[in-house]
């Protein structure tokens, strides 16, 4: 008998008789009056992210042009923001991605209760991109904010692609004496543009 | 209403004044109180040490002593909890009757007697130690870990006492470190936990530390005395029995 059979066999002998699976019936009625955009901004800023509301993307385009002129390695993955960096593909190696100063990525949805944004693999182009860049900018449609994780999981299909992530704020650690330090291994900053 | 007074073994031996106060208080509140003379102990010291198997004799004796009263009342939340959770016998009817009808003193006064005012008078600054078994086990007061409305049966009663200024330590319901035989098997941590409770009460400049469990108070008293502190411990029954 191999380990698989041994383990599954032991479970079938040792498990208790079947207990019913509960229905998730969380009512967010108590918070219906809350403005989810405000809540999203407040929460994300409390965990170290920055949020800017924009009615036009022109400002972002300008920002990208200026940074490029300064010689920064800026990666843009959104065609609406101008030229897209086609060199970023799923197999690009870490050693090449490592020099990216700032990356612009589109987010799918934002979650008000925790300030996170869902990113599909096709939105990040390379799984390392949102982690390895020094600074991360996410563009999110302001109408794509949901109140909580229950609704978030109804909206995204986590198994649609090989990888996806709820990303909430810049990389951080408090492993030294519980002192919060922003910029552990991932991006040192996160800016979310909420675009209406 | 016939109340059987259950006085835990160490209270009988070391703190008879708490037992006397409990008895007098219950009588003052109109109860007919009996103290069955053959009672000994609930068996908790053995059970918490892993020897619940040895507590059968205690259980039998407990049932023989308390099987015939309307309520069993005790000035010790911890012992009451033990009986509520672990008293068993071949005669389960009697055991389950006792398990349902045993009360810690303050919950008995609040929930059964439904007392709404007291004549007690204790013009002192008093810090309340919330004992874990009474709180988390018997639900005598709300717990800091849970998202639930706040309440406290012991504080409800203490707030009726004339002249008494009640305070809570910063960490309102952290354990004092007594923990039964933990107090000797884990001496270093036990004492440290007790010292930390005392430090927080001292910040509130209390004259007394009170609570619903003599065991916690005995532990805190031992540390206070060793420190040469002027702060005294007093069981809640002794305060409620003042006039």
């Amino acid at each position: 008998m191999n380990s698989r059979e041994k383990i599954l066999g032991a479970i079938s002998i040792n498990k208790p008789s079947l207990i019913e699976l509960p229905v998730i019936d969380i009512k967010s009625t108590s918070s219906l009056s809350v403005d989810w955009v405000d809540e999203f901004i407040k929460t994300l800023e409390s965990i170290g992210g920055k949020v800017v509301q924009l009615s036009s993307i022109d400002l972002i385009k300008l920002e990208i042009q200026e940074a490029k002129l300064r010689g920064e390695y800026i990666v843009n993955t959104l065609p609406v923001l101008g030229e897209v960096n086609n060199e970023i593909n799923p197999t690009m190696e870490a050693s090449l991605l490592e020099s990216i100063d700032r990356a612009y990525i589109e987010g799918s949805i934002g979650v008000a209760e925790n300030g996170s944004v869902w990113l599909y693999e096709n939105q990040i182009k390379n799984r390392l991109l949102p982690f390895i860049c020094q600074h991360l900018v996410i563009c999110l449609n302001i109408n794509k904010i949901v109140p909580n994780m229950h609704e978030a999981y109804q909206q995204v299909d986590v198994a649609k692609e090989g990888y996806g992530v709820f990303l909430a704020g810049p990389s951080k650690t408090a492993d030294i004496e519980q002192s919060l330090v922003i910029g552990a291994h991932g991006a040192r900053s996160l800016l979310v543009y909420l675009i209406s | 209403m016939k109340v059987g007074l259950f006085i835990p073994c160490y209270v009988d031996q070391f703190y008879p004044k708490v037992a006397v106060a409990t008895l007098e208080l219950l009588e003052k509140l109109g109860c007919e109180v009996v103290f069955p003379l053959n009672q000994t102990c609930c068996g908790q010291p053995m059970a918490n040490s892993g020897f619940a198997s040895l507590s059968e004799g205690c259980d039998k004796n407990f049932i023989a002593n308390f099987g015939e009263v309307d309520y069993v009342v005790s000035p010790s939340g911890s012992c009451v909890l033990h009986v509520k959770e672990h008293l068993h016998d071949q005669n389960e009817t009697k055991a389950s009757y006792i398990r349902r009808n045993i009360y810690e003193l303050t919950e008995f006064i609040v929930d059964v007697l439904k007392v709404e005012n007291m004549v007690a008078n204790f013009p002192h600054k008093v810090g309340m130690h919330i004992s874990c078994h009474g709180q988390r086990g018997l639900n005598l007061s709300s717990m800091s870990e849970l998202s639930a409305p706040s309440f406290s049966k012991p504080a409800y009663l203490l707030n009726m006492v004339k002249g008494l200024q009640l305070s809570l330590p910063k960490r309102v319901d952290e354990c004092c470190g007594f923990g039964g035989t933990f107090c000797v098997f884990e001496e270093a941590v036990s004492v440290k936990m007790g010292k930390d409770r005392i430090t927080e009460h001292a910040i509130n400049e209390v004259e007394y530390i009170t609570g619903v469990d003599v065991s916690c108070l005995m532990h805190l008293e031992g540390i206070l005395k060793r420190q040469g502190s002027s702060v005294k411990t007093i069981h809640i029954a002794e305060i409620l029995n003042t006039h």
Partner: protein
Amino acid sequence: MNPKNFNRLFFVPIQGAGLSHSAAAEIFNKDEERTDWHDETLWFVREKRDKAVKQISEWEQLRTLGSDIKDHTLSNLDIYLAEFEKNAQANGIKIHWAIDAEEHNEIILGIIREQKVQQVVKSKSMLTEECHLNDYLAQRGIDVIDTDLGERIVQFRNEPPSHIVLPAIHLKKQDVSETFHEHLGTEKGNNDPQYLTEAARQHLRDKFIKSQLAITGVNFAIASTGGFVVCTNEGNADMGAHAAKIHVASMGIEKIIPKVEHLGVFLRLLARSATGQPITTYSSHFHQPRVGQQMHIIIVDNGRTKQLGRPDFRSSLKCIRCAACFNTCPVYRRSGGHSYHTAVAGPIGSILNPNLDMKANADLPFASTLCGSCSNVCPVKIDIHVQLYKWRQVLVAEGFTTGGKKVAMKGMAFVLSHPSIYRISGKIGRWIMRVFPFIFNNKSFNPWYKQREMPEAPEQSFRDWYKKNKK
């Protein structure tokens, strides 16, 4: 009685190698200032947790859901594991099964050798700590670089983690500074956490880029989709997994959840309970290897099926490793994780570890006052303190106790079962003084008296008073 025998009889639980929890805790408490610091640092985390959970009006409902979903899952675990395996394989993930720690480690060594891997990075995985993977691979010439900051710190110091979420919480910034000065060449005496973290970032970026194989843990594995979720704040699991050509994820059999919708419940519970954050910075959902990558999952038993067969203790397998019970435990905060001498310390460790080795861990269920705070903070409502009590009964029944304790308890039980003897004992002298180990007013013999005064023996017992005044 000479003190040595006395101590042997009463205070040192039977235990394998090393110090018992109480002995280690006594050493820990010798530096009271540091004990205070440790206690306050962890209490701060507990306070952050309180603040976060009180912002969620449905918190207690979420805990109930989390608990019920896990209860259900355990009752159908074999079916869900098989479903997970099938779906994960269809996603292109290779599944391995390991009956114990040894087999788990062998599987990883096999992958390393087969693929001729030189550089291995690992993000935090308590399961690999439980399996002592690093030691196993080091003995075979393979160095694993831990990439979580706290884990890297303790790895440099050759220490195990002292906390499952905050591995280096027992260390002060001065200690970290010295360690980094020695290993990374940081400025001597520069204790700034920002500076030290930056040094680790630079050091580990290089390791991520060069690594060929990344090991991660698994927070949740979804049966219906064959994917898994890994949660970190630093981003180290992602940096490792996405940079390396091989990703190996180790999971205990209990990490399964039935469906994606259940992630909504657990991700809401996990970070709030752990650190008071609304969610970890990164909650990464892996379903397929990336182009050109290999992805392996090792499903590990290592005693879990045995625990599943213990009705009193099986719910310990619901644990999602948030460590809220550590942070709230007044004993953990004042004894430090290393006093528990196991990979998973704290209250949850004290109910998990006796299952793995009763003899070596017989002391752990006694390292508690049974105050119950652990059960109240647990996001999946494990009745930890009740299980601590129950483990005590099992350990005594199985003979893992000292002869002295047994004699004392038997003596106590005999007196307490016989009212007439109890009364006589009371008259002769306060019998408790003789049955409890409070015996002597001597600091070296009597642990009560070491730092506490004895209660004063009154003139008469209550019983005597009652007979005189009421009868």
